[in-house]
């Protein structure tokens, strides 16, 4: 299965809304989700959508490892390539 790319991640993030002061097309890879306006519930929602789309299951401690978009991409793509 294809990897999760930044554009795909942004598309998922947009379904959770975009905070007024945030430009998702800017440099966001290493900006914590919290600073982008996404609280823990929103990150869980993003994770859930990735799980559905790529048929993977995130572990319970995934929140600890997916604090920024880059971490989310890495974490998700690890799962996708290993088929976890």
């Amino acid at each position, binding site marked *: 299965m294809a990897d999760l790319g930044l554009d795909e991640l942004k598309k998922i993030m947009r379904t959770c809304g*975009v*905070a*007024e002061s945030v430009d998702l097309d800017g440099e966001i890879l290493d900006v914590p989700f919290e600073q982008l*306006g996404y609280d823990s519930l*929103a990150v869980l929602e993003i994770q*859930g959508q990735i*799980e559905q789309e790529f048929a993977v*299951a995130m572990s319970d401690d995934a929140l600890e490892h997916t604090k920024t978009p880059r971490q989310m991409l890495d974490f998700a793509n690890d799962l996708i390539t290993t088929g976890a």
Partner: protein
Amino acid sequence: MTAVITGVGVVAPTGIGVEEHWTAVVNGDTAIRPISRFDASGYPVRHAGEIREFDAAERVPSLLVPQTDHWTHLGFQAAEMALADAGVDPAELPEYEMAVVTAASSGGTEFGQKEIQKLWSKGSRAVGAYQSIAWFYAASTGQISIRHGMRGPCGVIANEQAGGLDVLAQARRMLRNGAKVVVSGGTDASLCPYGLTAQLSSGLLSRDPDPARAFRPFTPGAAGYLPGEGGGKLIIEDAAHAAARGVRAPYGEVAGYAATFDPPPRSGRPPTLRRAIDGALADAAITAAEVDVVFADAMGEAGADLREAAAISAVFGPYGVPVAAPKVLTGRLYAGGAPLDVITALMCMRDGIVPAVPGGWELDPEQHIDLVQGEPRRMPVRTVLVLARGYGGFNAALVLRAP
């Protein structure tokens, strides 16, 4: 302590914003239309009071839109309007003196149907994180409290249609217990396939396919009601607090309230709406003669209409008080219905205009009430009684007094 209303917000089929709504009500412009939120052509009820031109993306903070149901979007927007109308800046008020109490009836029905469909068609892991905060009945109160840093007592009363009055009385209790500003009122939005189907099961919806005839309370042909969505929010405030911050003319006072509950069907015991009316008048320390207008619950179901008309004429005498039923223009809004009626009643007091139901209806001669019909009636209005009943036997009566 006097509880006054210092701000109102309307998100209703008749309009977004109180003035748009009030103009439509005075003009008798019905908002009953074919249902457009889903394909209702296969259902026995195909008309409802839907809110037109409500784009959540434009009116609700972006991050809040996917977190919450349409019902909360409407409630959130109404609360924003009411706060702005009251000139209240929550950032300037003590956090524990601001409270929120809203009425709920069906919760986040449309959101819930989508998620439950994912569960049963794709499996449990397809259910999103937001189902946990979108569907439940406290979603609107919680979101409003969070948005504005309101850390006082927060509550939700789910007494179906009657709850819309019960929460205004609850707001008054909160003021008596030390709160200064309370966001109250309610909305409902259950016009999705499952929501409509659930409503159909009550047997109270009118199946008359002609929208002009379908919802005609107090007429011999009354066949039930049509549903609607939306409602209103009100800012209930301690009068002294409002005066101190420079509010010169609040809309009115929450002057009296009482609630009763009907005995079970076939118990042989009498219904209790009349007792609620008497209780509300006593609470306001007024006589029936002082009430200028009654806003009826006006369910449009023959038996319910008969009972309400009997209670009104028992208290006020046959044809003793003008009766208004503006909900024929919006449909029955459940948790949003009574708050909208209260706001309409405040406009009726402000402008001295009692809204009318369409002319040409033949009224049931068994029901001895003066239902304002055809043309709105111009008259000074200082005191209004608003009635609401909730499915299963709830009765609530609220007295509003001009400031």
